């Protein structure tokens, strides 16, 4: 069943008890239910990897917002994924420091190795590639994040090491 068919199913049963507990915890910190919107999206995304239409509608209903209002928030932030992503999301910095240090070439290298461009996911659903404006690590530029790990001082060799010989990859903070 696709999302379109699911739309009018029982939205109350979409979110798990665990998710609802976590959202309730956030709700206790905010004066308006809609104030927990971003956290609720993050909670559900942490469990499911992305926010489907159905998840979005369920969260909106729970927070007493319209789906449009929550959609506005979900799509504003590019770290809320409204489409399925790979197991690890590569957040590739294309901001000024990284650009001066040659990130364009590195990005091309990633595309060559993984076969994906910005906004795309590898066929094996391992990686998605998304640009970000800055990761706050300009002193170690060029940088990117792979999943939860920051990878610094990028060069072609490191990209090969990361993505072609995964066995060698041992953390990233080098």
């Amino acid at each position, binding site marked *: 069943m696709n999302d379109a068919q699911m739309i009018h199913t029982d939205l109350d049963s979409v979110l798990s008890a665990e998710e609802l507990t976590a959202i309730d915890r956030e709700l206790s910190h905010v004066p308006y239910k809609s104030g927990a919107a971003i956290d609720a999206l993050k909670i559900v995304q942490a469990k499911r990897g992305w926010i489907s*239409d159905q998840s979005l509608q369920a969260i909106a209903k729970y927070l007493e917002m319209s789906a449009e209002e929550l959609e506005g928030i979900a799509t504003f932030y590019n770290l809320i994924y409204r489409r399925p992503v790979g197991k690890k999301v590569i957040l590739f910095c294309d901001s000024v420091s990284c650009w001066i240090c040659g990130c364009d070439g590195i990005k091309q290298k990633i595309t060559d190795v993984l076969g994906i461009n910005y906004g795309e996911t590898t066929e094996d659903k391992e990686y998605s590639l998304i640009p970000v404006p800055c990761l706050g690590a300009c002193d170690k530029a060029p940088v990117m994040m792979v999943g939860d790990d920051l990878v610094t001082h990028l060069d072609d060799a490191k990209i090969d090491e990361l993505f072609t010989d995964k066995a060698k990859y041992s953390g990233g903070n080098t």
Partner: protein
Amino acid sequence: MPTIYVDDQALEVAQGENILEACLNAGLDLPYFCWHPAMGSIGSCRQCAVVQYQNEEDTKGRIVMGCMTPVTEGARFSLNTDNASKFREAVVESLMLNHPHDCPVCGEGGECHLQDMTVMVGHRDRRYTGKKNTHRNQYLGPLIHHEMNRCITCYRCERYYRDYAGGNDLAAQASHDHVYFGRHEEGVLQSEFSGNLVEVCPTGVFTDKPFLKHYSRKWDLQSAPSICSGCAVGCNIAPAERYGKLKRVHNRYNHEVNGYFLCDRGRFGSGYINSDSRLDYAGIKKPDGSFMAVHQQQAIDTAVEWVKNKKVAGIGSPRGSIEANYLLRELVGAANFVPGFSDREAGILKAIVRILKTTTAINPSIKQMETADAILILGEDVTNTAPRVALGLRQAVRNKAFELAAQMGLPQWQDAAVRNLAQDQRSPMIIVSATDTRLDDVASQCISLSPDDIAAFGYGVAEALSGRKSQDEMVNQVAAVLAGANNPLVISGASMLHEGIVNSAVAVAEQLHSCDKPSMLSLCVAESNSLGLALLVDDPNSDANMSIANLTKQASDFDVVIVLENSLERRGLSEQIDSLYKANTKVISMDILENTTLANSDLVLPAASYAESQGTVVNSEGRAQRYFPVYQPSTERLPSWQWLLKLAVGCEHGGLANLEYFDQVVAACANSQAAFGRLVDVAPMRDYRNQGLKVPRQTHRYSGRTAMHAGVSVHEPQQPQDSQSPLTFSMEGLNRESPAALMPYVWSPGWNSNQSLQKFQAEVDGPLKGGTAGVHLISSDASGAVEPAVPITPTLKPHHWRLVPVHQVHGSDEMSVNTDEIAQLAGRAFIAVGAKLAEKLGVTEGDGLIVAPHNTELSLQVKILSRVAKNCVGFSAGYLETLDLQPGDLVTLSKDEAWVQPTSTVIATDRGPAHV
């Protein structure tokens, strides 16, 4: 008043306004996009940039946004310095990067604010050669066409739709260069005010979908000042015509009534005027029951033959003009004239006239209602019975926000800041109703009570205000809220057909006056001229108020009954009406669309619609306003007042036979009774001239005037002449500097879009230079309205529910529902129950219920409401299927096991066969 200097020119400006407003007030052309006079400033588009200088010596200055900069004494600005004008041009150039080059096929072209601003800033050459962003458009229902590629992200649509009109199904999505304004998923926009997006959007993202099906450019449209006939609010509209078809309806600014906005019934509900159900010819009924089409003169001759020297009765029309009703009354004699209300409606309207003539409360315009700081609504779903008023109430509850802003020294126009400050803090609005209303989302309290209990609640509040506390704590709380307000507003009306509710509202308003509050009392009535007609038959010295029911009983006493624009079936009483048709009395009817009354008449006369005739209507505020013909009716049709006048002339009627012009009818009516004395002041007479010329209905660029009918005949037709009004079917004349009642369209050099309105306003957001259209006919002697408490109806029987009417903005109105798009939105007639009752009856939304009043029964589709008063069920008011259901009746309910849920309620669609 501070003085500011703009390009070294000293300007006296109003304290508290911003630079953009100050410049526009001074007649300067400062471009803008996101600012709107009704919605204030957010500084998002950067278009109104000006340079501000520190002092006289400062030659460099800095760029500030005009709409975000308050005026201060001695402040110095420049619009024309290179920095400012280059900045503004750059802003337009950047907006144009992604804007398509599709003006020739865009519905906004020729009245596009973006086009105007692009020309104004001097941006001419495109330098960008890259690809433009493209978006997927959404289906937003039958009224609004979506073309997202044209968006310049000014955020006006979202600010209007969500912040101003309270809709929650349109939002800004995504960020930076792929911002998108739309719904979460495709579907019909849910707001009753969605149509204003067409005028609010500065470019062609949201356009009028029905208009696009038979599109003409603004400059090719012929318009006239008109009044909406959709309800009794009396919004000023500018309908537009070409090729003999009504093309569209735009808002016509009236400072005190509708301001900048209309409801969707008003904007889109006139499509029936082009419908195939219009009568083309007069018809005489043949013995076999069918009609023989006859020409106008033959129809008049026949009518004269039937009417002359005979005993004739007349049934008037609350949707007909004062003039037409007046002529009918004079023709048949006051004793033989009935207004054409249902009996219950007549009683309530009689009471309302009495109340408005004596109340100490102010009968407010929408503009005045927007100043209320506490609102009590008794029994009215305002959004569905007087829609534009509801939009005003949504602004009134923001007075709390403005109060908080004033404490912080924030000007009202700082829109985002004021909204952030207030969050959901609103001025109190208490809604006491039988079923949920479309204002519940901004109400401080919603109370569900049966109609009798609503009246009792109202009386309780009045008592509590007088110091006698109620046992019901809720009543005392509401009284305390009203007593604590500076400017309380009480709203009620005739929609529940319950006199007690109206009377209790009056009691509250009068009691507030006794507590030294300048209270406002607004009473909604049903049709565009309900109040005008009630005034016409208002005779305090006489109790004789013949109802339709009485008339039908005496039908055989009359040789002829003349029915003016009235579908009698809609007045209840189907049995009595049938007896009228069966009696040996001839029935002459004139109306716009085919209906049962016409089908049962012996002579039918095709009447012109409001767009093809002129007349005066009185809104629920007591404001008389005139509408003028946009175009001439087709050959065989006549405005009702002309049918009646020709009939009177044919019958050699003493008082009427010497009348020829509309103005003479107005004058005769004004002389006939004191209440209409000011009718002659409603709009200028036909001899009005501006610089020696009549007011043009056509724009100065109107094209193809002599060739547009070449498809029919190559001979150039003579331009129609208008001897009846101060308007002309021509482009010759001045479109500005006319009285407000004669403003057919807005246009000003360099300002082709509706934003040119500011050139017609005396000041930003103020009244028009030509004044404010309309004249108040009812002035109260402030002696205090005292209405008797209406006895409570008998208590319920077990297993019975009381019927309460549920009004629908799309569906309950007789005429607009004959427009395809409105019919699609109206859907099917329904019976509305609360969730608990639905469960008890074993039904869910879309199932069928057998509703049995008295000895009949009918099956209706179930609609589940979020709140319904105990022991009550709602029914769709004004739908053909439910015309026989009477408010207040007791019914039994049972599940209709044989009910087949209709596969689709779509009557017309523009989505292709797959969606039907």
